[in-house]
């Protein structure tokens, strides 16, 4: 019956890497995300993740399976990732192992990863509804709400296969499966919960084409379909008044919230040398069509909605320069997004005008118009050590993501229309260090994502007691909902080992 609050927080999850352009994220609030889906090794992360004019030899075969044509021989990658948010706001660890191989005109890869995602560490930051001691006098039938365990395990599997068709043309396909027990930050969406059990899966299917012309001109095309399905079983502790015994009763209530998303997308990218001096230029264009048959409710972000659909696009241009041991790259991407979500009436509802909204009709419509901008840039340089050329590589970069949207919300029950504008900027310094030996290569990449926040900080609910009348016994409302700024730092170490 309840028309719940909804979030567009985690609209799409299967971003293969930090610079993935194939799936366009849609976010309405700057809640900090961990780098949970940073599963595959990347060369360019240390350079801000530039990718439009600068190939990422490690990541490209995972983003577009046809680009495995560039792989020579067989290589093993072990690329553990660890991330954590400041103010003890969560973190996680991922251990992926990947193999890319080529045999004749066939090529492909497999990858598997296990992952541990920590709770965001804020469940205890939210006070109980009343300032009464749990299990103390005045509260009966106390339920032992210890909250969910501290961390949960996810598992990922990836496989791709492709074939070089000659004349620089190759095709490939990939499938990625994710078995999910925890999505980073989802526990923040249910601040009043006693327990949260997540379960679900994701499937990502990709068909790619890659064409390489003489003169280093390349074209890639990708069609993808991504399905995401999660269930959140949220246990709340509800408080009731028992008039017969003049006492509060606590009972547990479990809400099962479903999150479903289906994304179909097309991505095109073209690169070519710009001039003879080592400059390259690249362009991309992407279209994503997202259907959300169910959107999980939450209690943090508060746009009422049950279902939604979106059309997200990006167009971008990148410049890169490779000359000698130095490299430089910059990407600029514009993301126009149109998204609509709505809530439907579970029961006939009376409008303020006296009309009745029938069951299934829309009670609230939210029309978003996003204009996001992404800027990535980075520099890198290889150095010679003890006579070995390129033995040491250093990268520095910065990624900026500006999110800006306008929301027009039509409330059919109140017969009102409201407008809202919101914007924020994420900024991520990145860095990288590479050590190359004759038999193996060791890379370290890191980044810090700033500009986001997480609830649960002092002042989020739990406001101070004010001087109430002597016999009052309840807490006063705290301050408005707000997010405390947190930074998320990510470290990836990649060991590349040629097998033959």
């Amino acid at each position: 019956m309840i028309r719940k609050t909804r979030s567009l927080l985690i609209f799409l999850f299967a971003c293969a890497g930090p610079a993935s352009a194939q799936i366009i994220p849609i976010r309405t609030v700057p809640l900090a995300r961990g780098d949970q889906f940073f599963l595959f090794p990347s060369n360019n992360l240390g350079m801000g993740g530039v990718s439009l004019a600068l190939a990422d030899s490690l990541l490209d075969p995972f983003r577009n399976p046809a680009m495995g044509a560039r792989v020579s021989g067989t290589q093993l990658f072990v690329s553990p990732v660890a991330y954590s948010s400041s103010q003890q706001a969560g973190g996680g660890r991922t251990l992926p192992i990947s193999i890319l191989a080529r045999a004749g005109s066939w090529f492909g890869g497999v990858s598997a990863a296990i992952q541990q995602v920590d709770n965001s560490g804020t469940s205890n930051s939210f006070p109980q509804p009343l300032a009464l001691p749990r299990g103390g006098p005045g509260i009966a039938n106390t339920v032992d709400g210890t909250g969910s365990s501290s961390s949960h395990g996810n598992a990922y599997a990836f496989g791709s296969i492709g074939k070089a068709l000659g004349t620089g043309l190759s095709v490939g396909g990939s499938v990625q499966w994710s078995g999910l027990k925890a999505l980073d930050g989802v526990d923040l969406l249910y601040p009043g919960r006693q327990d949260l059990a997540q379960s679900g899966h994701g499937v990502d299917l990709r068909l790619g084409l890659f064409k390489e012309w003489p003169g280093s001109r390349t074209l890639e095309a990708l069609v993808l379909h991504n399905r995401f399905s999660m269930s959140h079983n949220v246990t709340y502790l509800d408080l009731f008044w028992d008039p017969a015994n003049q006492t509060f009763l606590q009972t547990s209530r479990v809400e099962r919230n479903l999150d479903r998303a289906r994304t179909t997308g097309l991505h095109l990218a073209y690169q070519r040398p710009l001039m003879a001096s080592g400059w390259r230029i690249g362009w991309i264009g992407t279209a994503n069509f997202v259907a959300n048959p169910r959107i999980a409710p939450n209690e943090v972000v508060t746009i009422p909605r049950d279902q939604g659909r979106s059309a997200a696009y990006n167009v971008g241009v990148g410049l890169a320069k490779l000359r000698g041991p130095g490299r430089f790259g910059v990407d600029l991407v514009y993301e126009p997004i149109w998204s609509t979500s709505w809530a439907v009436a579970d029961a006939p509802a009376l409008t303020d005008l006296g009309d009745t909204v029938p069951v299934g009709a829309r009670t609230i419509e939210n029309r978003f118009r996003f204009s996001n901008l992404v800027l990535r840039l980075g520099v890198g340089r290889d150095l010679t050590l003890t006579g070995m050329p390129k033995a040491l590589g250093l990268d520095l970069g910065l990624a900026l993501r500006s999110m800006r949207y306008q929301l027009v919300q039509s409330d059919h029950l109140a017969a009102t229309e409201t407008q809202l504008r919101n914007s924020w900027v994420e900024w991520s310094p990145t860095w990288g260090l590479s050590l190359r030996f004759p038999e193996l290569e060791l890379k370290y990449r890191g980044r810090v994502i700033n500009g986001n926040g997480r609830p649960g900080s002092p002042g989020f609910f739990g406001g101070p007691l004010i001087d109430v009348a002597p016999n009052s016994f309840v807490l006063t409302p705290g301050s408005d909902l707000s997010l405390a700024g947190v930074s998320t730092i990510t470290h990836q170490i990649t060991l590349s080992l040629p097998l033959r």
Partner: protein
Amino acid sequence: MTRHVVRALGLGLLVMAAGCVETDRVMPQPPSLDAELRATLRNWGVVPIIPQPAQDSSLVALGQALFFDKELSGNRDIACATCHNPVTAMGDGQSLPVGTGGSGIGPWRVLGPGRQFVPRNAPTLLNVALGQPYIFWDGRVTGFGGQFQTPAGDSLPRGLPNVLTAQAMFPVTNRREMRGDPGDTDVFGKPNELAQAGDSQWTAMWRGVMLRLIAIPEYVAKFNRAFPTVPTNQLGFQHAAIAITAFETQALTKIDTPFDRYLGRNDDAMTSAAKRGALLFFGKAACSTCHNGPQIGAGNFVDVGVPQIGPGGAAEPPLDLGRGELQGNEFYRFAFRVAPLRNVELTGPYFHDGAYATLDAVVKHYNDVRLSLTGFDPAQLAPELQALYHGDAGTIAAVLERLDFRLQQPLKLTVTEQSELVAFLKALTDPSARDLSALVPANVPSGLPVR
């Protein structure tokens, strides 16, 4: 050229990074009405109420008979239901009640010759069984953790099940309400023997009422059915009070309100106007700083600057000091119990002396208490009460001296906001409380007229 491009981009990066530092603390979009309201409600202890257990039918039947029977009054001319009438939502619809000696019921009841109004408004008995810790406008009957404090002190029979039962012991002892004065005669011209006991002879007063009741065979049968293990000669008025409480619990608990359905997680139960009113109630208007908890009130005592009307209390007549009348409660001069608000739409006139007839007037009063009190027009009262309005400067100053700190300054609610507050207050109405006439029995064991 390459160097120039790199330098320009590097400078741009620095500028952008500097500009982004300000985003360290970010705000999400404003919450929806429902989300904001639910988050607010969590902080005020306003929680759903679980249904009352069904009461024993024999107890309820006995309690109903007693509630409507004038045999309990000294002059046999007034019952509990006279001032707590189902026709007027278990109040009497008057600013101040007319006790024993009067005639008629509800808003049409008039004083008898030589009688005075009861000093305080007859509060509704709807939901009186929801576990209120304080009973009566001055909270002279209290119950916490099974311990009761009443004017009767140690004379109160032991083993009473709840504070409501303790309260039910007292109206029959009040001279102006039900007991009458020495020298009174009842409706049959017989001497009023109940009025003979002294005002502190609690046991004698209760025993007198019980002697009347067990003299009526139908009552004996009803008591025996309701208390099968208690011999007739050991029945006391506490047994009558237990039965009255059972009736009140069974028949007068009315909590199926739009707001309660909203608390039960039905977002569509209240209109948007009522939700906006609720946000004001629990926010800007600060009503919830007093009207909080499961009962939406009933938990404290506040001087809200209500005009002084009526004969007054015993301490400083004709003023009514409210809780300040009780010994050791000087702090609470002019403070009265915060009313629980379910079904408030049906239970006017409002405040301890019924100074305001409508919810609109109440909200307007709260919007600027000083202005409302100093500008109070007694013409809005019933003619017979207008002379009992104490609007002299000294009285107003005394009331304002103890005015609650939250009401010292005007709330500055707009006209729209005031109407939204009223919309919320109307969302506290259980539709089944609008017509309670079915509760009125055709007759009572004493044979006295019910209406």
